[in-house]
């Protein structure tokens, strides 16, 4: 069983490495140079997938929280925790890359426009989620309360995404109506970048899950 697990992990790491390598090649060497912004626009190929995968991870955490409340199995709680932690890392990356892009194109590191504001709020919510977990010791209660908080917090995600449509904003609208504002070549690179980020997320998630399971084992053994 362990050997299977190890092979399965190694395969994931290998796949991620390949996907990341391919995406990097595409982003820096194949993607066309943008007419107005120049090369700095390539940050877009990191910024968008980071944000998207961050949202995906937080959605997984939300779903796992729901499942935990319904089924009360500890593996859902583990998944909720691990995915939330990784999601927070991706969102951080999204915000930081977005900030660099903002400085390059708008001239400021930050502005309190709706999309950025709600991103900051989302970050704070999941940072608080992790803090809450650290502040509670009883495993069962911690899992339950954290699950409810994750559900409450996740409602912020669609508000975040909708913000870009509800208010007049400086944030570029990439996907409008049916099509996109990107040329097909750029779209291809973006998609490959998203694939690479997603694979990487899955890899790190399975690694983190294993870590959490080992942590629980240690706690249980330690208390005997």
């Amino acid at each position, binding site marked *: 069983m362990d050997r299977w697990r190890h092979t399965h992990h190694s395969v994931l790491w290998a796949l991620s490495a390949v996907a990341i390598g391919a995406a990097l090649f595409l982003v820096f060497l194949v993607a066309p140079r943008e007419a107005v912004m120049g090369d700095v626009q390539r940050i877009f190929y990191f910024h968008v997938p980071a944000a998207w995968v961050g949202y995906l991870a937080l959605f997984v955490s939300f779903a796992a929280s729901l499942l935990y409340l319904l089924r009360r199995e500890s593996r859902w709680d583990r998944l909720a925790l691990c995915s939330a932690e990784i999601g927070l890392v991706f969102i951080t990356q999204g915000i930081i890359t977005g900030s660099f892009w903002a400085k390059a194109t708008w001239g400021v590191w930050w502005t309190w426009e709706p999309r950025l504001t709600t991103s900051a709020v989302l970050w704070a919510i999941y940072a608080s989620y992790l803090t809450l977990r650290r502040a509670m010791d009883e495993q069962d*209660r911690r899992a339950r309360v954290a699950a409810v908080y994750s559900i409450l917090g996740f409602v912020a995600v669609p508000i975040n995404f909708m913000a870009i449509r509800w208010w007049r904003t400086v944030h570029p609208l990439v996907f409008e109506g049916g099509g996109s504002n990107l040329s097909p070549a750029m779209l291809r690179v973006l998609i490959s970048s998203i694939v690479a980020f997603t694979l990487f997320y899955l890899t790190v998630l399975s690694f983190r899950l294993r870590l959490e399971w080992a942590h629980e084992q240690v706690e249980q053994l330690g208390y005997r």
Partner: protein
Amino acid sequence: MNFFAKVWTLVLKDLSLEKRSREMLSSMSIFALLVVLVFSFSFDLRVEEVSGVAPGVVWVAISFAGMLGLARSFVLERDQGCLDGLLLCPVDRSLLYLGKMLSNLLFISLTELVVLPLCFALFNLTFHLLLLPILLLGTIGFSAVGTIVSAMTVHARAREVMLPILLFPLVLPALIAAVKLTGGVLDGQPWGEIRNWMELLVGFDVIFMVISYLAFEYVIEE
């Protein structure tokens, strides 16, 4: 007892507790007044048009004072062992939420009644009838989320710090909407411009009340 009677009984319980000690309302009001005063001093020295920051100051004062009230409301129950008593009642757990939420709403609103006249005086604002529903909706949002979050922190370490940490990020969209709306109304902006924020606030209230109502039993069970 029917639904409303049960909820009302819960609210009355909190009201009568408060009537006897009077400590929560007075501390909330004094704290809110102090917040307003401090902001009024600090901005007055730097900002020319003080009424511009008024909406923000009002809502900061309301949320800080509200935080105080929320923190006390569940801790009191826990410390006196009342929480167990409440849980033993043959009442749907979600009704406990409603009762708590309404009494928190009531206490914060009473605090607002005390603090707002001072704000109007200090910042030289003109009253507008539309402000009342805005205040109410904003307070409802704050109380809806605050009640369930304070129930969550009852069993956490460092709970006085955890409550603001957990509550503020969740409630921020509602606070922003409330500030925008208050500012818009005080500045005399046409309704069309600020309608979006009202939709956001109402949506926030509805969504979070429903979710909290449903999820409360998971938080409070032993």
